Every structure is written in structure tokens, then in C-alpha cells.
């Protein structure tokens, strides 16, 4: 166990470079979290203005990804990190890719919100979408908390939560299909809702990925594409 090994470098400059990069990833995560919440609010309350703001903020998310990426390659080139430090930089690079994807999904939801705002609102399970969104954004929040605290148990809890989100997603899909079968006139707007639900489900998957990078960084073990039980066994051994 060398959880926070990178704190013990002789060069304090190097230490603070690594800490800074971590802080920036988490700041980016905070922004992305807000993007999810606001995009869904725009969808549920058909607030076009808020949806447009989410689209604008996505540019900032993309910028942050590029900046952090550059910082990481700078550290790789100048410091040539090994062991725990290398794993940290590696986990950061992977995490920001997932965060950027989450940002894209949020933007997609915001686009659907604009489209949906111009249509009649009956016959779409928007309240349930709000619920799924709260669930998913909590997952992203917990994954980032696990990343901040380097907490393997919390990361495992996020992975477990992904299963619940998947079940909720399936239930919502069935509901949407029922809506469309009952009244074909609702198909267009229910399709918009389906796209948003799908985006939320994808966000859940990205949150799970982030928690896997946390386990990779702390334990040095690759737990991607493992079942939940195998993943827990690996992480706890």
C-alpha cells in the first residue's frame, strides 16, 4: 500500500505539481457535475435559457481537458514519474477523458431540452428522468469524492450503484415504449426523452470508469471489464 506515496518527494515543487493537477481534475469534475444537474433541470422545467448556458459551459469543460492533458504530458516529459506517480498521472489522463465525455452527454441532454421545450409536454415521464438524473449525478459526485480521498471502498460503492442505475434505465425505457404504443403522436417527444435517458445511463458508466481508475491508482490493479464480485475481490486483496 503506497496510497499517497507521491507526497514524499524530495522536490516539493514536484509534489505541488502533482497535487495541482489533481485539484484541477476535481475542479473540472465539479463543473461537469453542475452541467448534469443544470441540463436535467433545463429538460424537466423546459428552461431554454439554462439549456443554452449548459451548451456554452461545455466549451469550458473541453478547454479544461486540453489544459490538464498538456500539464500531464509536461510532468511525464520533465519528471519521468515512476510507480505511484506514474499511476496518478495515468489515472488523471484517463479520468479527464471520461469527464469530458460526461460533459458531452450533458450537452446532449441540454440540446434535447431545447427541442422538447418547443413541444407539448404531456406524455413523457419527465419526473422519472429527474429522479434518474439525481441518482446519476450523485454517482459522479461519489466517484469524484473517491478520487479526492483515494478511497477504494467508496469507489467500489460507485461501481455497485451503476447496477441500480442500469435497472432504473431499463424501467424508464419500458415506460417510454408504453407511452409510444398508447399514442403514436407522442413518439417524437418520447424519442427526445429516450435520448436523454440514454445519455444519463452513459454518464453512470463513465462514473464507474472513474471509480475504476481510483482502484487502479491506489492498488495498482486493473479492474476494468471485470464483474462486480471479481472487482471487489481484486480491490480488497
Amino acid at each position, binding site marked *: 500500500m503506497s496510497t499517497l506515496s507521491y507526497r514524499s518527494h524530495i522536490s516539493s515543487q514536484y509534489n505541488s505539481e502533482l497535487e495541482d493537477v489533481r485539484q484541477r481534475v476535481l475542479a473540472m469534475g465539479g463543473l461537469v457535475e453542475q452541467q448534469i444537474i443544470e441540463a436535467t433541470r433545463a429538460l424537466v422545467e423546459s428552461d431554454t435559457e439554462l439549456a443554452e448556458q449548459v451548451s456554452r459551459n461545455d466549451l469550458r469543460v473541453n478547454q479544461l481537458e486540453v489544459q490538464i492533458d498538456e500539464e500531464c504530458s509536461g510532468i511525464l516529459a520533465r519528471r519521468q514519474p515512476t510507480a505511484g506517480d506514474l499511476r496518478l498521472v495515468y489515472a488523471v489522463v484517463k479520468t479527464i477523458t471520461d469527464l469530458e465525455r460526461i460533459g458531452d452527454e450533458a450537452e446532449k441532454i441540454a440540446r434535447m431540452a431545447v427541442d422538447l421545450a418547443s413541444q407539448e409536454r404531456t406524455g413523457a415521464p419527465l419526473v422519472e428522468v429527474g429522479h434518474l438524473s439525481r441518482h446519476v449525478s450523485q454517482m459522479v459526485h461519489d466517484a*469524484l*469524492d473517491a478520487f479526492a*480521498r483515494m478511497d477504494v471502498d467508496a469507489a467500489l460503492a460507485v461501481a455497485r450503484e451503476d447496477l441500480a442505475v442500469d435497472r432504473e434505465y431499463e424501467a424508464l425505457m419500458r415506460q417510454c415504449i408504453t407511452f409510444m404504443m398508447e399514442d403514436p403522436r407522442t413518439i417524437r417527444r418520447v424519442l427526445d426523452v429516450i435520448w436523454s435517458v440514454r445519455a444519463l445511463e452513459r454518464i453512470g458508466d463513465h462514473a464507474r470508469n472513474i471509480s475504476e481508475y481510483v482502484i487502479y491508482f491506489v492498488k495498482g490493479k486493473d479492474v476494468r471489464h471485470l464483474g462486480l464480485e471479481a472487482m471487489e475481490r481484486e480491490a480488497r486483496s
Partner: protein
Amino acid sequence: MSRAWLPSPDLLRQIVQLLLRVGLAAAFGAWIGFLWPTIAATLLLSLIIHLRYLTRLRSWLNTPKQVDLPLADGIWGEVYDGLLNLQKRNRKRKRKLAAILAEFQASTEALPDGAVVLGPNGEIVWFNTAAQALLGLRVQQDVGLRIANLVRKPVFTEYFSRDDYSGEVECDSPINADTMLSFRIIPYGNGQRLMIVRDVSDLRRLETARRDFVANASHELRTPLTVLRGYLDVMEPETRKGGSLHDWTSPMSEMRAQAARMEALINDLLKLARLEANIINTRQDLLDVPRMLARTHEQAKTMSKGQHRIEFDIEPELRLYGRDSETQSVFTNLVSNAVQYTPQGGIINVRWWGDDSGAHFSVADTGIGIAEKDLPRLTERFYRVDTGRSRATGGTGLGLSIVKHALEHLDGKLSIESELGVGTTFTCSFPIHRVHAGSQRNELRAPIG
């Protein structure tokens, strides 16, 4: 300067002692015929004794709590005594410092606001229990982590990275989206920062309530006005054409009703404003509650028009100290509510009684009842459980607000029990010091002052 080269008297004494011992051994050795071996053995023995004391000292230094310093003679005894004294002094000082620190932390702990001490890079150095609850910080785990890693709201991140921390910033709590927090950072010496976190949810809720009130009040006042204007717009060209007012009798009675409604609304608002202004009137009258309730009984009968069975069960001598108009409005509002919300044929039971805890007034009806989720908001101004119904019965939406505020002035408490479709019981309890001593129950004490 030359003194430094001389051995100190202490050392000289030790050397003399050693020489004496060796001399004695040499004399003994010369007597038994082994001079040099005896000297060597003596020297070796004293070396071994010294080494023994030295190792004991080392093990004591490593684990000062488990190993006791043994008693020793000579110079080692003095060394041990000195060390023990030093340790005792240090312990005392440590206890004193710990007490001061504990006192400081206890005082910061008692603060209702969260306090977090941050190091030069924004890492958490210390935080109190309030901060733990507000931000979801963990006691051991989170010390040393950067605060910006845990509180990640973009508004906060932006504020945190500023150079100038004037003002505060508000965002929702990282652990509970319903809690609004206000952050304020105060820098102090050595790049340290103190972060104060306050829960401002109640404040924000209050602001929303105030905004809602203004919106509701203007809406309620505008509705009758719209009706009045609508009729006037039609009437004016008609009368100008020389039409008679004769055909307008039914619209006119409607207009009168709307005007009366507006008047009632404004009266209620004024009453509420007076109650809220909290004018403390030291003069308290002795109120003849049974007579007031007899009046309320008559009003209720008139309102009900014989559609309900109204029962009044009044203790005849029980009187109260308070203000006439406030107390009367409590009775009237609760009883008229019961009449309005009880369907035809229902029973309304009004009781006024005293016991050891004070005097009580209750109104029980067999009306439509109130859902549990509406109960906490019932005394809010203009809060209506069912908007259409309550307007139809002519309520202003202010009755229970008035009751609540009036009761506050009378030190009374309102409790509501209700079940949907079964009925509702409102009970007002007045404390014992409000109750008149001459009331029929002898155990009631006289009011103070």
C-alpha cells in the same frame, strides 16, 4: 581560558573515587600475589557496571512508559534523577498546553458555524464538528486533503482561487443539495486561511416566502378588482345610451360581494400586520371568555343556517387575561373555518376547559380533513389546500395566520389533529399564568404581575 583545560571538580572527584577503588584492589592483589590481574578485573567490573546502567538508560529512552528507571548509586543515580525530573516537568507543561488547546477547540467547537483552518496550499489543517456536518468532512481521513478537492462547486472553486476574499459566496452543500451554504475565507499569518461556513437555507426560504406573499397578496386583491372592472366596462356604455340600471341588479349584488371580499381581505391583512408589528401591550384585560364564546356561538349558528349540529361545551367561570380583539379573532376564525369546511349534517364540537396545565379551547369538526403534508404549511399566509374550494366559500386565506400570530401574543400554542375525510380538531392551549385565579378550579394559581 586555561581553566577549560583543567578537569572540573566533579570529574576530579569521580577520578579520585576510581583511583581509590583501583588502589584498594591493587593492595589486595599485591597481598595475594596477583597484582595486575586483580587491577584488570576491577577495571573490567566497573566498566561492566557502567555499561549495564547505560543499556538500561537506552531501553528507558526508547520506551519511557514501560520501563522504570532503576535506583542507582553514584553518578548514575544523579543522572537518572535528573532525567526523571526533566520528564516530570515536561509532562506538566504538556498537560497545561493540552488543556489550553482543548479549551480553544471546545470554544470553536461550540460555534454554530463551520470553521475550517486551511494551510498554504488550501489543505485542511483542522475543522470543527459543524463543518463536518455541513461539508461532510471526515475526521481522520480528510486532514491534509485540499479543500477544493472536496468542495468542487464551480462558484466555490472560482472564489477560492481568487486573491481577494472580500465578500462571501453561496452554493449548495456537497452532501445535501437542499442545504444552501455561505462560504467566507479569511486569510491570516503564514499563508493560513480560516474558512467560515454558514447554513443559510432558512434565510433563503424566508426570502422565498416573502416574495410569495407579495405575489399572492397582489393576486388575491386583483381578482375582485378584475370582476368589478369587467362589469363597469359593460355598464358604462349601456348607461350612456340611456339604459336603466334596472337590469343590473344581479351584477350589482355580485359587485357588492366582490367589494366586500376585498374589504375583508384588507381588514385581515391589516390585522395581521398589527399582530406582526408585535406591539407589546402590557395592559391585559380580564376576558369573560364564556360570554365571548356565547357570541361566537350565535355567529356560528347564523353562518351554518341550521345545516350543522353545533355543540358548545363551556366551563362557565373560566376566564383569561389577554386582549379582547385578539382572543375573539382566534375563536371566530377557528369556529367559522369549521362551519365552512364541514359538509351539511356534520357535527361541530367546541370546548373550553381548564386543567392543571392551563386553559384549553378546542374546535372539532367532522369535515373534509387535512392531508398530513399540508399541516406544516397551514398557517402560512394565503396557503390553501384546495384553491377553488376555499375561494368559493369566501375565505381570505389569512384566517389561520391570524390565529397563529394572535396565539403567540397570548403565549398560547396551536395544535392540529386531522384525518382526511374524518375531521379535524384544532386545540389552543393557554398557559396557567394567563388563567384567572377566580376561575372555578381552586388549584389554579394567581397570575404574576
